[in-house]
C-alpha cells in the first residue's frame, strides 16, 4: 500500500543576508490515511516550514529545496508545477493556521468567502464552478459540521462579528470544502483561550474520526499534541530527533532533547515536580552545530556526537530515534 504522505530525506534552506540557513536537514516521515501525527518542537525548529512544504507555501526566495522528496499518494509533489499544486491544495491537502483573524478578509461576509473557496476548488479540479446558491448550500452544511449554530445567519455575518473560536471553526469548515485526505493544522489553537482551545481540539478529533481524515498537527504545546495525535515527531533545529507513539514517547522519551522538552513542562497536577529547563539556547541554522545539532546542549554528548550526524534508528517497533547513545 502506498503511504498517503511520504517525506524522504527532505532538505530545505533559506537564503538570507548572513548566509544559507539549513532550515530542514533531512526529514523522514510517513503518514498513512487516517493517521494522526503531531509535530512538536520549539521556535525555529522548522515545524511550520515543514508543514508549509506540503502545500508549497514557503515563499521562494528565500526558501530553496535542496534535496529529497515529498510524495503524496506516490507522486512527488516537490516537482509539481504551481498548476498541479493548486489541484492538490484544499482537495487533497488542506491547512488551517494559527491566527484565524488574518486568514479571513474583513470586508467580505463569511458566506461570500466560503462560496469563493468552494467555487475555487471546483475550478482547480478542472470542473465548472458550481452556481453560487449551490456553493452557499454546501457552506451551510460545512458550518453545521464544525458545530456552528445558525449557519444561515452566520453566512451573512462578517469576520469581525465572530469570536476567535468561531473564526477558527469557519476556517476549518473552509478547509473541509474540498474533502481533503489530509488536514495540516499549524498551531490551530495557539491564539485561542484555553476553554475554547479544548472545544476546537475536540472538534478536530471528531472530524478526523468521522471523515477518516489524516491529521498533521503542528504545535509547540506537548499537551495539545498529546490530546490529539496518536503519533508524535519531535523536531529540533531542522531535524526530527524522535518519532514514536505519543503515549510511549511521553512515558519514556529516548532522545535527550525529547526528555528535556517533557521535563520542562510544568505539571498542573504535580506542583511539587519542578520543571527543568534545557540549558543554552537554540543554535543558529546558518552555521549549525556539527554532528548532532543538539550536542552543545546535551548532557550526554561525546566526541562522536560532535562529528557524526546521528541517523534515525528504529530502536523499538514504531519508534525512531536520531541519537548515537539512545538505548531501548
Amino acid at each position: 500500500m502506498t503511504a498517503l504522505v511520504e517525506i524522504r530525506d527532505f532538505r530545505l534552506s533559506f537564503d538570507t543576508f548572513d548566509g544559507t540557513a539549513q532550515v530542514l536537514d533531512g526529514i523522514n516521515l510517513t503518514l498513512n490515511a487516517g493517521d494522526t501525527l503531531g509535530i512538536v518542537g520549539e521556535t525555529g525548529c522548522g515545524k511550520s516550514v515543514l508543514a508549509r512544504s506540503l502545500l508549497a507555501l514557503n515563499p521562494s526566495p528565500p526558501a530553496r529545496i535542496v534535496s529529497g522528496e515529498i510524495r503524496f499518494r506516490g507522486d512527488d509533489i516537490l516537482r509539481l508545477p504551481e498548476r498541479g499544486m493548486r489541484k492538490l491544495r484544499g482537495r487533497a491537502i488542506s491547512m488551517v493556521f494559527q491566527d484565524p483573524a488574518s486568514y479571513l478578509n474583513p470586508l467580505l461576509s463569511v458566506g461570500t468567502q466560503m462560496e469563493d473557496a468552494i467555487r475555487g476548488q471546483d475550478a482547480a479540479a478542472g470542473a465548472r464552478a458550481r452556481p453560487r446558491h449551490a456553493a452557499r448550500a454546501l457552506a451551510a452544511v460545512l458550518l453545521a459540521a464544525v458545530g456552528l449554530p445558525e449557519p444561515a445567519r452566520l453566512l451573512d455575518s462578517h469576520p469581525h462579528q465572530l469570536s476567535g473560536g468561531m473564526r477558527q471553526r469557519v476556517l476549518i469548515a473552509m478547509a473541509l470544502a474540498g474533502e481533503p485526505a489530509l488536514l495540516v493544522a499549524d498551531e490551530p489553537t495557539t491564539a485561542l483561550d484555553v476553554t475554547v482551545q479544548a472545544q476546537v481540539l475536540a472538534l478536530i478529533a471528531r472530524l478526523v474520526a468521522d471523515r477518516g481524515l489524516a491529521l498533521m498537527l503542528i504545535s509547540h504545546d506537548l499537551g495539545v499534541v498529546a490530546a490529539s495525535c496518536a503519533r508524535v515527531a519531535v523536531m529540533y533545529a531542522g531535524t526530527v530527533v524522535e518519532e514514536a507513539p505519543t503515549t510511549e514517547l511521553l512515558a519514556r522519551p529516548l532522545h535527550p532533547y525529547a526528555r528535556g522538552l517533557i521535563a520542562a513542562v510544568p505539571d498542573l497536577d504535580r506542583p511539587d515536580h519542578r520543571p527543568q529547563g534545557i540549558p543554552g539556547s537554540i543554535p543558529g541554522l546558518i552555521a549549525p552545530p556539527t554532528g548532532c545539532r543538539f550536542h552543545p546542549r546535551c548532557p550526554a554528548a561525546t566526541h562522536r556526537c560532535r562529528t557524526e550526524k546521528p541517523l534515525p534508528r528504529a530502536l523499538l517497533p514504531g519508534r525512531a530515534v536520531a541519537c548515537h547513545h539512545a538505548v531501548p
Partner: protein
Amino acid sequence: MSAAAEETVAAPPRRRLRLALWLLTRSFSSMLGLFLVTGIVVLALIGPWIVPYPDDVAGGVNLANKLQPPSRAHWFGTDEVGNDILTRVIVGARVSLLVGIGITFAAAAIGVPLGILAGLAGGRLREAIMRFTDLFLSVPGLVLAIALVAALGPGIGNAMVALILVWWPGYVRLAESKALSIREEPFIEAARVAGASRARILRRHVLPNSISPLIVKMSMDIGQAILAVASLGFIGLGAKPPTPEWGAMISIARGYLPEWWWYAMAPGVFIYLAVLGFNLLGDGLRDILDPRSNRG
C-alpha cells in the same frame, strides 16, 4: 522567518552597515537613485571649479556666441546671451540642492516637533495642532505657495519661505502618527515604570524610533522641493535671471522652443534626474530602514 530569528551575529554597527549596503546593492533602482543623488551633490560641491566657462556663471553677455547648438566646445549649446548652458546647469545644481535641502529641513524642523507634541499630548492640544495642520493641507500646496510669493514678492528667498510654509504640515501628520504608535509600545511603558519623565521618554525613545520614516520622507521631499522651486522659477516667481536656476532657465528657454530645443532640454533633464534620484533613494532607504526587511 522564524528559523533565522535566533541567529547570533557579528558586531552590531558593522553588521548593520553591511546589511544596509547589501540591501541597497541588491536593488537596481536604489543604486540608480544613490548614483544620481551622489552625482548632484558632487556637482553642487565642486561645480564652480570644474565648469568649462566660469565667467558665464554670473551671466556675462557674449552675443556673438548666442544660441549655439550643442558642440564639442559647448556640450549643451549656449543660451540667448551666449553663455555656456552646461556651465549654468552645473552651477544650478548648487542652487537647486541648497534650496531643496533648505526647504525640507526647515519644514521638518517645524513639523516634527509639532507632530510629536500632538501625538504625545493628546486631548485639546492635539486637536488644535492637527486642525490647524488640516487647514494648510486642505489648500493645494503649490497654489498656496504662488499666492504667498505673490504677496511677499518674487525671488528665491521668498519662494523658499513660501514653500516651507506649505511644506511643514506633512511632517506634522507623519510625526504625529509615528508618535501615536510608538506611545503604545511596551518599551515606553517600561520607561514610565522606571520613572522616566515625559521629556526623557521623548528624547530617548520616541524621537530615535521615529527617525526612519522621517528620513525616507525627507529624501523624497528634497526631490519634490527642487521641482517646486523650479516651478516657481518657471512662472517667474522664483529665482530671477541671471541666477542659474533650472526653473528660471526653462522659463526663458520656453520662448526659444522649438528651434533652439537644447536650451530647455539641459535644465529639464537635470530637474528630471534630480527628482528621480531623490525619489529612488527614498524608496531604497525605506527598504533599508524598515526592520522587517532586516532578515533579507
